[in-house]
C-alpha cells in the first residue's frame, strides 16, 4: 500500500488524471485503473477538506516549535 499522501499531492495527481482521461487515448486496462484511482483521489481530497479541523499554529522559539498562543483582542 502507498504511504499516506498529502492533500496537495493528491489534488495535483487528480488534476493530472482528469486531463489524461479527457484525452481518452489510453488502453482499457489503464483507463479503468486511472478512472478508479481518480475517483479514489477525489474522495480522499473531499474527505480531507471535510474532516480538517482547525489550522495548526506553531511558534518558532529558540529553534524549537512550540504551540502558539493567540494574542487576545
Amino acid at each position, binding site marked *: 500500500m502507498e504511504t499516506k499522501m*498529502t492533500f496537495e499531492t493528491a489534488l495535483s495527481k487528480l*488534476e493530472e488524471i482528469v486531463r489524461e482521461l479527457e484525452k481518452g487515448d489510453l488502453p*482499457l486496462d489503464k483507463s479503468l485503473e486511472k478512472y478508479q484511482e481518480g475517483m479514489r483521489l477525489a474522495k480522499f481530497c*473531499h474527505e480531507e477538506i471535510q474532516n480538517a479541523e482547525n489550522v495548526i*499554529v*506553531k*511558534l518558532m522559539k529558540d529553534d524549537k*516549535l512550540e504551540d*502558539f498562543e493567540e494574542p487576545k483582542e
Partner: protein
Amino acid sequence: MEKKYITVSALNRYLKYFFDNDKNLQNILLKAEISNFKRHSRGHLYFTLKDDSSQIPAVMFQSNAVSLDFEPKDGSKVVVEGYVSVYEPIGNYQVYVRKMYESGIGDLYQAYENLKKKLSEAGMFDESHKRPLPQYPKNIGVITSPTGAAVRDIIHIVNRRYPLARIIVYPTLVQGDEAKYSIVRMIEKANKDLLSDVLIVGRGGGSIEDLWAFNEEIVAKAIYESKIPVISAVGHETDFTIADFVSDRRAPTPSGAAEIVVPDQNTLLMQISGYTRNMAVSWQKYIQVKTDMLNTLRRSPVILNGERLLEKPELKLASAYDRLLQKRPDRILDSYREKTNNLKTRISLVLENLRLALETRVENDIDRLELVNPLSLMKKGYAMARKNGTIVKTVSLLEKGDNIELQMSDGIVGCTVDKIGKD
C-alpha cells in the same frame, strides 16, 4: 512688413504645453517651508513654498489633501511630491502637490525614494525575479509580531479558508531601531530550517515611522535573497514599502495576505466535484467509443457467417476437380483427388481456426467491457485479483506464497496464495 500676433490665451496654452512635456517637472520632490497657507472651503489647500531666497506658489487639491496625516500651517517645514504646471487664466506657474510630509518624516520619505530608485536600478524589483506562490501551501511561515493584530487576522482567515495548512509564526519586532535586524534574522532562519512553502512578512497599520523597518535596505535584501517565496503584508492598502516592491507578491494588508496565500475550501470542494463529473463523462465517452468499435466488429461477415468464407475456396476446388476430370488420366486423377481432399481439409481447418481466433478475440473484448463496470459485477460476488497493482488474468502469473489483493465490491482483501490449480 506684416507682423503675426498671437493671443494671450494661446501663449499661456503654449507655455503650459511646454511645462507639461518636461519630464523633470512632472515628478519633483521639493524641500521647503510653508507660508501664506489658506484652506479653501472646498478643501483645496493654497500656499507658498519657500526657502531662504526664493518662493513658488503651490496648490494641493482636496482629493490629495484628505490623505495628509498632519495639519500644515505657516512655518511648517515640509517635503512635497508633485509636478509643476501653468495655471492658464493668470499665467503663473505653480507646484501641484500630490503628497506632503512633515520635514523629519519628509527626510524619511526622501530616503525611501532614494532607496527605491537605487534598488529598482539594481534590478531588485524585476518581474523576472519574482517566483510563483505555491498553489496549495502546506506550511505557511508568518514573520511578524506574535502579539499583534496582524498574526491574529492571518490565523483566522487561513483557518476559515484552508484549515489543512499549518502556520509557523516566526516572532519579530516590527517597529523601532532593532526591528530590521529582527526581521532579517527571521527571514534567514525560515530559509535555513526550510519548514515553510511560503512566507508572509509584515505587520498591521501605523505611521510611516512605525512601518519604517520595512523600508530598510537589509530587509529588502533578505526578502530578495529568500529561497522561499515571500508575500509582503505591511500596513494598510495605501502604504507602499520597499518590502512590497521587492517581495514576490504584495498583499494590501495582513488579512489580504491570508486571502492570497491559500485557496478557499468551498471553491476547492466545487472544483473536486467538477473533476469527479469530468471523469465520469470522459469514462462514459470512452466506453461508448469502445462499444461502437465492438459492435462494428460483431457485424462483420466473418463473425455473422463464417462459413461463407469457405465458399470461394470450395468453388475453386470444385472447378479444378472438374478440369482434372475432363482430362481423365485416371491414375493421376486419384492422386489429385487425394491431394485436393487433403487441401480442402486443411483450408477448412485454417478457416475454422481463424474464425475461432476472431470469436475469441471478440469474446475477450466483451469480457473486458464487462469489466467496465466492475463494481456491479463484484456485487454479484466476483472479485478482481491484483498482484503488485497489476490485474492477474491467469494463474500462470502466480506462485505459491505470493501476496495478492482481491478487490470486492466494498473493499480489498489481502491474500496469500497457498495452492494453485489449473483448469
